[in-house]
């Protein structure tokens, strides 16, 4: 069973994402800000992270960079899930090494499919 970490400070989306991932059969962890997210990645080594960008503490980009900069954690799959939809943000995310970039609002069905694909590559 794979572990999925949901990093987002908005409870209104976490509730739906949590349910979605559990229904998919993954073990779900939740982080409410950037620092917590990084700590949890280091400790639990999830297979996939659903990473928001606008979070208190470190931003999603900083977390992404830290993860990719650390050899131990570098292989973690990261899917950015954010309201920041400008093309510059997408470019930055991809340049920093995100495996996917989904702009809110999104379709839960499509998200589930994308998660399945990313984990299936394992």
């Amino acid at each position, binding site marked *: 069973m794979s572990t999925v970490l949901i990093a987002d400070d908005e409870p209104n989306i976490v509730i739906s994402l949590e349910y979605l991932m559990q229904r998919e059969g993954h073990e779900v962890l939740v982080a409410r800000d950037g620092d917590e997210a990084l700590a949890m990645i280091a400790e639990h080594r999830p297979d996939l992270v659903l990473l928001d960008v606008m979070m208190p503490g470190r931003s999603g980009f900083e977390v992404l960079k830290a993860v990719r900069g*650390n050899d131990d954690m570098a292989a973690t799959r990261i899917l950015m899930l954010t309201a920041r939809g400008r093309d510059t943000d997408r470019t930055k995310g991809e*340049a*920093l090494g995100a495996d996917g970039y989904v702009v809110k609002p999104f379709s839960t069905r499509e998200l589930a499919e994308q998660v399945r694909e990313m984990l299936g590559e394992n």
Partner: protein
Amino acid sequence: MRRADKWLFAGVALVGLVCLAWLIVAGVLLWAVLDKADWTTVTEALGGRAGLLIFLWALALVPVTGTLRFLIARYITAPARLAEAARLRLDNPVDEPLTIDGSRETQQLADIFNTLITRHRELREATDERVAEAGRRIELERGRLAALMSELRKSVVVCNLDGRILLYNNRARQQFRRLSGAAEVTGGAELMGLGRSIYTVLDRRLVAHALDTVRRRLESGAESPGAQFVTATPGGKLLRVQVSPVSETVDGEASPTRMAGFVLLTENITDDMQADAEKDRLLQSLTEGSRSALANTRAAIEILADDEVNEALRDRLLGVIHEEVTSLSERIDELSASSTERLRSRWPLEEMLGSELVDAAVRHLAEEGTIHVAREGNGEEIWLKVDSFSILQALAHLAARIADEHSVESVSLRLVRHGERAALDLLWQAQDEKQAVEPAWESEPMQTGDEQLSMSVNDVMERHGGTCWHESANGEKHCFRLLLPVAEPVERGTGPLAGDRESRPEYYDFDLFAITPETHSLDDTDLGALTFTVFDTETTGLDPSRDEIIQIGAVRIVNGRVLRHEFFEQLVDPGRAIPASSTAIHGITPDMVRGQPGLQTVLPAFHAFCRDTVLVAHNAAFDMRCLQVAEARTGVVFDQPVLDTLLLSALVHEHQAEHNLEAIARRFGLAIVGRHTAIGDAMVTAEIFVRLTPLLAEQGIHTLGQARSAAQKTQFARMRY
């Protein structure tokens, strides 16, 4: 006979008569005193010697004459000569001091005269110096005003109460050029020029109404009495015009309630209006458009909370929510995609060549600090849209952090394309194995030297609508990338300036404030008060009935000054071949005229350029005949009065044999630049005309009518084409 000689003659005669009288009296006395016998002895003794007496008498007169002459020269002639010399120096400055041979009194007079003359000269020189000084200061201030006006980014036009333009700046010139219908041919010069009427561009009633408002505000003592209006030009552009009064100066003091003229600040708001309208539309569609979607969703959710809702309705309501929310998502995506191009950054960004930015960065970093900067890259030309100062600050901050954190001594700069944008990369090599998460340099406040700014690198990127990040490969090769917007390549330089490029164009003539509407006919107007268009044409040959115009050059004279930058220059496609013999003279080849507009386009534009002026040309009969022949084809009639510098030169220098352009220019000491180009010849003719005008005045020719009739009387007037 000279006066002195008269005196001499009279004096000698007087002395002679006195001596003779004395002799006679002596003789008479002797005769009276002596008795007859003694008298007979005396007369016998003297008898033959009477002649000797007469001779002695005559001889005595000689030294008398000499003495008298000396005395007259000293006491009469010398003062007279002094008076003459002094009188001469009254009107003419003569450097030599007065010297006179004469009595001591006369000498003293001469010395006093000299002193007075010297003092007078010194006084005059001091006054002249002060006048020149004042004149220089005025010129300096005028120059400063001209510089200010010409570099202003807003277009400024000053008019007198008649609406005649007497000052405008470069920006106004460019703006009106864009508004002109015949811009490619005239460069807008038929709209914007000293002495031209502003009412060819702006509606007279609009301006009059604005001026009324201004007057009322002036009279009521408002602090900033101005008015503004928005008007559409014939070309469909929107202009915002602000009108302010120019106060009349009475006795050197600006009178607060009376206007001598007005200032117009014009701005082309067409693009701004469109952009604002677009933003409003987007905002509108977002708010209004979302209301229904949210209403549907909210109502459905609230109904769902009701326990009594049955399965079928529940399913339908869920369907509604799903549908509305999905379409709202789609709309946001659409709007987001379409609006990003149009939502410009509010911060003023400049177009700049990428390599120039990199050069500036290299210089800036070299000055700032301890780090050495190299360049990398393929030298591709990329145009950026940047606020260069804040970019340099960002780079300086990053370079300093790099130097501190990684103990590196050199970095390189590279500029490459990145999709639709450009990436400015700061590259360095670091050996350290820093695995720890670096503090985010881009979000902390920037530091330059000792100062800490309130902006971060992120803020700078925000301004540019870009972003930045740090990449590293293997922890060794590091790259800090700044993503910047790309601009359209900019064309360098504005339109050509005829004549000398060094002089700053003069776009003002404050004398025009005073010009009042003509109450007399053109013929009675003084030459100095008229506006002239001096022109020249180059043709395919010398026969107006068969040859075609291939180039027109013209320049304006306003208030006695040649306005070198208000010119008209255009090649014309004649629609026929140009014989090699004529090309040899004016240098215009068939290649040069290919693709140029034809006479149908150029002549009406030229006509607009010459509007309300008197035409001047050298050997005008030829040029006017060419224009006449073109009348039938183009429907453009030139009915302005015409003056010919050939005839006027013959009037003024009637004894000279040569009156061709080179000869006249040489006589006036003018250099000819661009001989046998239409504009070059027009410029020289204009300079010649301006110099002929005062010479004509000396001959009593002041008005246009006088000039025309006098010119007709010269022999050249009989030439016909």
